[in-house]
């Protein structure tokens, strides 16, 4: 089984739009996984029908029993995450380390499970989709990404699909690392701006660090041809293949509003994405 992940250092460079279009081109042969768990948008285009729902248990959080608490303040002193004040735990800051439970002399602190989100197995017009939502402000998004990927692998096996297409999250931190480890190709979306170039260099550092083969797609390449040239130079230097260049096209937003993928909508960007798909398949 092969896995393609669509990522970007900078946000808003077209990951989800690309993933949805690749899903169209895969013609039902792939499982689709939305791993951008704290801003999941793929469902807006693919309109999944949920078949199965799973609870996501994030980090446990500490809870202080006010009846047992003697207000000695030892827990607050020991907490490295400033999660305890006035003998109450702020669940948004608690990282579940349990140190408070061992420093408490009166056994007033316990660790409680908490449901931090949900994961879903759904069906779409392009085949099975696994997605999730993390409750607003929750921790452990990397852990939820891993859960989505594990479920996707099970679904792929059961449904006999030999490809998983993953929509990743922006940045270079924990959810991104959880999205790319063990994938065959990371398609990195970028745009020709000073921020785009800066972020691309860092995300390519991450794919290299984790030994994942990267290919680059330049979105809105014709907005700044000089920057596009810089990106192409950077890719050459780092030995990264360019999968495609997508032109700026106001039709992209129209397609999004009508809930269509760019391949379904047709147009210059859709055509460019077909070429990206061909290059990825050759590489696979």
């Amino acid at each position, binding site marked *: 089984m092969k896995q393609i992940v669509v990522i970007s250092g900078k946000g808003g460079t077209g990951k989800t739009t690309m993933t949805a279009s690749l899903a169209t081109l895969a013609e039902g042969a792939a499982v689709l996984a939305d791993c951008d768990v704290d801003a999941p948008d793929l469902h807006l285009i693919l309109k999944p029908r949920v078949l199965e729902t799973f609870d996501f248990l994030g980090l446990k959080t500490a809870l202080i029993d006010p009846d047992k608490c003697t207000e000695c303040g030892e827990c607050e002193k020991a907490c490295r995450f400033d999660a305890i004040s006035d003998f109450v735990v702020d669940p948004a800051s608690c990282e579940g380390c349990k140190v408070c439970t061992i420093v408490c002399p009166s056994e007033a602190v316990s660790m409680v499970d908490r449901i931090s989100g949900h994961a879903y197995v759904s069906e779409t017009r392009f085949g099975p989709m696994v997605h999730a939502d993390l409750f607003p402000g929750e921790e452990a998004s990397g852990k939820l990404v891993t859960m989505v990927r594990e479920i996707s692998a099970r679904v792929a096996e059961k449904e006999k699909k030999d490809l998983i297409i993953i929509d990743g999250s922006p940045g270079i931190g924990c959810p991104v690392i959880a999205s790319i480890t063990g994938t065959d190709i990371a398609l990195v979306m970028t745009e020709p701006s000073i*921020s785009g170039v800066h972020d691309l260099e860092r995300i390519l550092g991450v794919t290299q660090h984790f030994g994942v083969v990267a290919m680059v797609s330049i979105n809105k390449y014709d907005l700044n041809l000089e920057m596009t040239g810089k990106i192409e130079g950077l890719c050459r230097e780092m030995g990264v293949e360019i999968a495609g260049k997508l032109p700026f096209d106001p039709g992209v937003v129209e397609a999004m509003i009508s809930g269509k993928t760019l391949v379904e909508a047709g147009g210059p960007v859709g055509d460019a994405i077909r070429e990206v798909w061909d290059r990825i398949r050759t590489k696979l």
Partner: protein
Amino acid sequence: MMISVASGKGGTGKTLVTTNLAASVGGVVLVDCDVEEPNSYLFFPRREDETCTDCDVMIPVIDDEKCKRCGRCSEFCAYNALAVFPKQVLLFKELCHGCGGCALVCPEGAISEGTRAIGKICRARSGDVGLLWGELSVGEPMATPLIRSVKAEAKGDLVLIDSPPGTACPVIEAVRGSDFCLLVTEPTPFGLYDLSIAVQVVRGMEIPCGVVVNRSGVGDRGVYDYCKREEIPILLEIPMNREIAELYSRGVLFSEAMAEWRDEFVELKRKIEEAAE
């Protein structure tokens, strides 16, 4: 006053708004908390007095002589960062949250604490704008400790926080403690969906918020209808404009190149102050 600039969706223009607001009003400290991909300083090419220091987190240091391989540390660790083998204890340092629990539970006193760098904190000055940003090292998963350290250095009458995208823990850390949160979105279904999650986050934190609609003129009315329904003020609209996009792509502040926008950003600050009351 501390104003944070956030958005659920990435690429909606947080940095565009933060940098132009900072340059237009002046006398501010601009803090880039998008430590995974910090970009705001790129828009201030004439930086002076730039210095960077390491951002350290705590990690356990195990004394192999004293360690009896009892396994208590690894049992206690909530992050699976320690593995005990017959001859030694292995630390997976990227997984460690630095809670110090292993040192507390070790019956042999074999664990002390050291530090390691996960990124750097940089400061500079550009005219009357103070710049402060964090840069997470490539391969490091945890942004939150670095965001916490960067914010700890932010001092001034007016502090502007450029937050990371998303709605998970790094965003909470960036937005925490602000007097007002400006949510930047675009008038599209993706922009609307992610905005609605971001609103839940800031409301949960009891921080008043307002919206900036970027690339207005494209898309649909969804964001406007939502803001009206939820009684969230739209404080500024920046139109879809090729000139603005091109200036941004070159790293130029459009409020400097298109002078009428400077007043718009000064007015934005006034509206924020009014709404934060």
